């Protein structure tokens, strides 16, 4: 099924899927891992282990009773050598558990396939698995799967758009484990009594479309939809619009329009988890960028340091000047190679000098390209101006908080103005003003 419907705006980013034919290589167990207690959007976990404790693969090492959270499991067997705040992917310090591995990878004895009946128990089991949205945002999966009272979910959308340049993590999942994906979809459909499933894939991945059409051919409830390749097709609201024609109003969730969106890797994980009970301890990560020797796809244990991952992949051909966790449009620039791979890390990119140098911002000529590019119908140039002037009232008037930070505006700006950066600043200003009670 080819889809004509298309979200407004966006940008024609290069695809650069150099690793699409790189079969996933399992990375060896590193000497140590550092597992942060925050690997999701929400409240950080409390560490359940202390220095000197012995841990096994899949053992819970962090949890909290707060709703918006997901437990953290050990990805290795070994000895806890430190529990302290450590440098985190975003540049802040987060309590982390450092484990010296013993290389045995002994399984925790509690790991067994979960038993559940009914949707509540299923959702409970999903929380225990530690699953977060594997597309990159890291929103706890059990929350996504439990819509608020009175909200009827009729459609499950599987996000395999993968619109960010370089990343092929979702693509490889379909090519390598399509039956797992299918299985996971059926499990979620059954548990939550969902009638329709739409699998959205961009048209620059014909092999993946063919593969999913093949495995889904037996079911008349599951449709594969070919999406136009345009960034940010994989953003939740854009994907929902492109596949169903439904618009998620500002500040609302997909469940408000009867939809749940899950990443293709997430459903595939659910299938594995229901079969084996193994929680989320590993992730496929695309390694690429102008500074690496071998662009590749690696299966990495969560908590492995970036330097270990890059070295296993074949090292650097030139010393990198910019290292990203995630894609070039929304990824987070890293301060250090000592930070760890997280549950929702889908790519590690290292760039040589020529790709790392920041363009100088010029004067806005009001060409309106940012306005045309914004998929949320915002006016980035006015958000930029008002954030630089700290004009809270105007920032609110121009709906600064609706910005999804996709980066399309900055990407197309001919004056190379750092629009997303100042919009983020604007959001922070609005938050601060609200905290001061100046609503």
């Amino acid at each position, binding site marked *: 099924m080819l889809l004509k419907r298309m979200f407004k705006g966006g*940008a*024609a*980013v*290069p695809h650069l899927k150099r690793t699409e034919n790189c079969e996933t290589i399992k990375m060896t167990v590193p000497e140590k891992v550092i597992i942060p207690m925050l690997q999701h959007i929400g409240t950080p976990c409390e560490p359940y282990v202390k220095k000197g404790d012995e841990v096994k693969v899949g053992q819970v090492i962090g949890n909290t009773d707060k709703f918006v959270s997901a437990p953290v499991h050990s990805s290795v067997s070994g000895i806890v050598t430190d529990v302290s705040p450590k440098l985190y992917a975003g*540049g802040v310090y987060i309590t982390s558990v450092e484990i010296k591995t013993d290389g045995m990878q002994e399984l925790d004895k509690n790991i067994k396939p979960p038993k559940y009946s009914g949707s509540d128990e299923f959702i409970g089991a999903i929380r225990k698995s530690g699953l977060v949205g594997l597309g990159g945002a890291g929103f706890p999966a059990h929350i996504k799967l439990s819509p608020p009272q009175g909200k009827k979910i009729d459609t499950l959308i599987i996000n395999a758009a993968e619109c960010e*340049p370089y990343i092929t993590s979702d693509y490889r999942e379909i090519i390598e484990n399509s039956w797992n994906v299918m299985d996971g979809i059926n499990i979620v459909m059954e548990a939550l009594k969902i009638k329709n499933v739409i699998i959205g894939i961009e048209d620059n991945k014909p092999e993946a479309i063919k593969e999913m059409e093949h495995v889904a051919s037996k079911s008349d409830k599951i449709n594969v939809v070919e999406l136009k390749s345009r960034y940010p097709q994989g953003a939740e609201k854009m994907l929902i619009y492109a596949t169903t024609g439904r618009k998620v109003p500002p500040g609302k969730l997909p469940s408000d329009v009867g939809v749940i969106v899950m990443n293709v890797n997430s459903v595939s994980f659910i299938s594995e988890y229901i079969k084996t009970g193994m929680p989320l301890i590993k992730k496929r990560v695309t390694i690429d960028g102008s500074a690496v020797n071998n662009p590749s796809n690696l299966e990495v244990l969560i908590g492995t340091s970036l330097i270990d991952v890059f070295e296993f992949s074949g090292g650097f051909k030139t010393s*990198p*000047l*910019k*290292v*990203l966790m*995630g894609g*070039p*449009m*929304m*990824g*987070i*620039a*890293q*301060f*250090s*190679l*000592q930070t760890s791979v997280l549950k929702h890390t889908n790519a590690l990119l290292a*760039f040589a000098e020529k*790709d*790392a*140098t*920041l*363009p100088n911002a*010029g*004067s*806005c*000529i*009001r*060409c*309106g*390209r940012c*306005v045309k590019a914004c998929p949320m119908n915002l*006016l980035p*140039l*006015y958000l930029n101006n008002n954030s630089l002037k700290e004009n809270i009232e105007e920032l609110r008037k121009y709906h600064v908080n609706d910005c999804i*930070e996709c*980066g399309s505006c*900055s*990407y*197309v*700006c*001919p*004056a*190379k103005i*750092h629009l*997303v*950066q100042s919009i*983020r600043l604007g959001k922070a200003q609005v938050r601060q003003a609200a905290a001061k009670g100046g609503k």
Partner: protein
Amino acid sequence: MENNFVVSSSPHIRDNASTRRIMLDVIIALLPATAFGIYSFGYRAALVILVTILSCVFSEYLSRKVLKKESTITDLSAVVTGLLLALNLPSTIPLWMAAVGGVVAIVIVKQLFGGLGQNFMNPALIARVFLLNAFVKHMTTFVNPGVDTVSGATPLYGIKEYVKGNKANLAGYWDLFIGNIPGCIGEISVAALLIGAAYLLIRGVIGFEIPITYIGSVALLTWFLGGETLFAGDWLYHILSGGLMIGAFFMATDYTTSPVTFKGRVIMGIGCGVLTAVIRLYTGYPEGVSFAILLMNSSFPLQKVN
């Protein structure tokens, strides 16, 4: 920190568009009209063009220097202003006047308001209107294209007299389209301007919103009100003559002085169209494109239209 990584906000890649490339595209798009102007009016037209461009670039350089700001002449925006100004001048204008126009455009209208992207009215148009008011005679003396430099009345002057009942020579549609008429250096040939406009539209430098609504509303209003009776106006004559084509495609679409949203651009186009038609039909001036665009420019901050 053991590494000296560049840490910046996403996105980490940019496309290869640049302000300079946009300005270069505008210059390229103006080349057919420029060439036709020089072909029609001879070396004198080339001199006027050269003088205004030099005057604009030099003014830009000097004012940035005096204001102790980074030089911006390499972004080519001053060249665009100079070229646009020249194309809106008669080829017979004394060169020093053309130079003064360049200074007014860049120093007063652009740099004193903060430079590129900050001026609220179109620099080239303000300069043209300034010259029109300061040196009426020189700004309204036009010669026929070709070797004989006999001064002639512009087609719009002709139709104004014609509608009043006076005898006047009306140009043919074909002459208007090709540009075989007296007028400013760059405004005479609709054909040459349309070639440039097509280039800008294809390159995505301008959108269709302002030109279509502008020309469309002039056509409608002049057809409706421009004749001796209602619905008898010669709308085709109106849209093919005067500065409408250069105004609609190259001046009203000026980024800095036009809105950024679809709705705003439609309002801009219709507003310019209505004002142009009103000035042409009901005032003492034969032509109203410059005033119409400038009035719309200056009204946008008041209307709070984005």
